[in-house]
């Protein structure tokens, strides 16, 4: 392919890529609104038995009812919030711990730095899902395990990123002048270094949120996290999969929600990453 030709192809794909990102950003916004506020507009109590079992979609129950006669639409509307909030909680905990470790390791080096790197090696020798499952064996199933497990899986990566970013900033003029002014280490880390590495950390947190949501959904599906009868998209797929031939909407509705939410977060995250890498280049 000749050079002008290739540039043309890139420009064409650039336009369609931007269009796709726009569409998925809207989808993502809608799904986030559904996840966070959906229960407010749910026609029924998501836990209440409101009709016969396995009713097919109709005017009273848009997505029909499940095995116990609960309204599928109401359960789907209420089923995203806990998982999304748990993913946010896990990432907030992980970012707080990871940033502190990374800042100290990057600024002070030495033992913290070495320990951090070895911890990361060990975690890389373990599938994330297996790690949380083993923790669940000790702590017992429940939402605490989800937050602790997903945070533990993410901390070394965040610490490593924060460390690298800190190394880049630590020798700049404004840090040196703060040192000359006689400011303490804590003040320098908080006032000089943290604000300067924040954009890197925040962009990374978005990608981590998407990953955390997927692990949490997977664990809920396995029955390790959110326990029935609480409504949750992944739990719904697990509890209704045996009845999939009787009432497919009990599985289609939560499946569509997870797929749309996950794809939109991923595509918007990818778009942010691409823009950042272009900005740097």
């Amino acid at each position, binding site marked *: 392919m000749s050079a002008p030709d290739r540039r043309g192809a890139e420009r064409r*794909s650039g336009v369609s890529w931007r269009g796709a990102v726009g569409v998925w950003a809207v989808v993502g916004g809608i799904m986030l609104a559904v996840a966070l506020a959906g229960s407010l507009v749910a026609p029924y109590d998501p836990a209440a038995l409101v009709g016969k079992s396995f009713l097919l979609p109709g005017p009273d129950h848009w997505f029909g009812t499940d095995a116990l006669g609960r309204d599928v639409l109401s359960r789907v509307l209420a089923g995203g919030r806990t998982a999304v909030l748990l993913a946010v909680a896990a990432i907030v905990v992980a970012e707080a711990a990871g940033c502190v470790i990374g800042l100290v390791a990057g600024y002070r080096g030495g033992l913290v730095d070495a320990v951090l790197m070895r911890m990361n090696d060990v975690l890389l*020798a373990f599938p994330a899902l297996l790690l949380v499952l*083993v923790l669940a*064996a000790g*702590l*017992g199933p429940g939402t605490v395990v989800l937050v602790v497990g997903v945070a533990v899986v993410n901390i070394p990566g965040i610490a490593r990123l924060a460390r690298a970013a800190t190394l880049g900033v630590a020798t700049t003029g404004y840090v040196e002048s703060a040192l000359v002014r006689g400011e303490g280490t804590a003040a320098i880390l908080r006032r000089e270094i943290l604000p300067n590495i924040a954009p890197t950390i925040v962009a990374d947190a978005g990608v981590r949120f998407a990953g955390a949501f997927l692990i949490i959904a997977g664990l809920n*599906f396995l029955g390790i996290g959110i326990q029935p009868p609480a409504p949750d998209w992944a739990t719904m797929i697990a509890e209704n999969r045996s009845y*999939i031939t009787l009432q497919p909407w009990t599985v*289609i509705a939560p499946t569509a929600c997870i797929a749309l939410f996950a794809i939109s977060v991923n595509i918007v995250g990818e778009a942010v990453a691409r823009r950042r890498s272009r900005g740097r280049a």
Partner: protein
Amino acid sequence: MPGAASSHGLIWMILRRIGVALVLALVVSFLVYAATTVLPGDVAAAVLGRNATPEAVAALREQLGLGDPFVQRYLGWLGDLVRGDLGTSLAGTRMPVSELIATPVRNTAVLAGATLLLLVPLALLVGILSGVRQGRSLDRAAAGVSLTLTAVPEFVIGALLVLALAVYVPVLPAVSLVSGDVNPLTVPEFLVLPVLTLIIAGAAYLIRIVRISTIEAMATDYVEAARLAGVPERRIVVRYAVRNSLAPTIQAVSATAQWLLGGVFIVEVLFAYPGVGNALVTAVQVRDVPVIQAIAMLLALAFILINLVADIATILVDPRLRAAA
């Protein structure tokens, strides 16, 4: 580095890598043991449930050795593990763990093996073709599909496949009813949906890496030189691009195999496939600690081993890495 010294360096590098793997295995064994036994909640009480008599709890604590100091318990457990004694299950039948997990291990090996056997050649083919035809329709279609699919969890892909192929066009069974002793290879139709789910979920990542490394190899000076020398394009792809993208491809295949160790859990539970993933999830729910420890160690060791083999293979295929040693 001249011949003798370089092969000496190579062996040294591989031995060092094996040493790192052994240390990792040791650390992981400690973490698995610690996470399953010292964390809050008395395992003995949890296993026996709320209505257990204090005597029964005390007896089980005795059997688990919970009275001894932690380090002593860990070393005892590690010693048994190294000798191949995995202990006995705490649930129901009190079977030896090695007997209990033998069939699930075989079933999972069949599922993972069948997936890799189909997934790797397919992903390599699509990845190389997309890389060679960068920006054309095949490449853009593959990029779009893979960006979408990397985001979707395995159980969602599996549920969609069940809806399509078992509910709306009922050609396949929705669940694998491979019972205990039946070899899943003798009932291949039960394998189709689980394998297909894993291929769809795993292909995206591998295709992406192969594509990028092919693009990088195709943009190098020696490919340009070969092209100017009139070497046919097909030959360039096979002799230069594919060979030079071998090292990143080995790493990507190893990452895919490692991902598979996590992915099988979900797919096994979704399709009620009787493998180690299903066994582990059941064991976690009833807190059958010896079974959890055995399966977790087995999967972690497989994980470390895959990494080790991939690293050694990479060192062997890429002369530049050897020189760097």
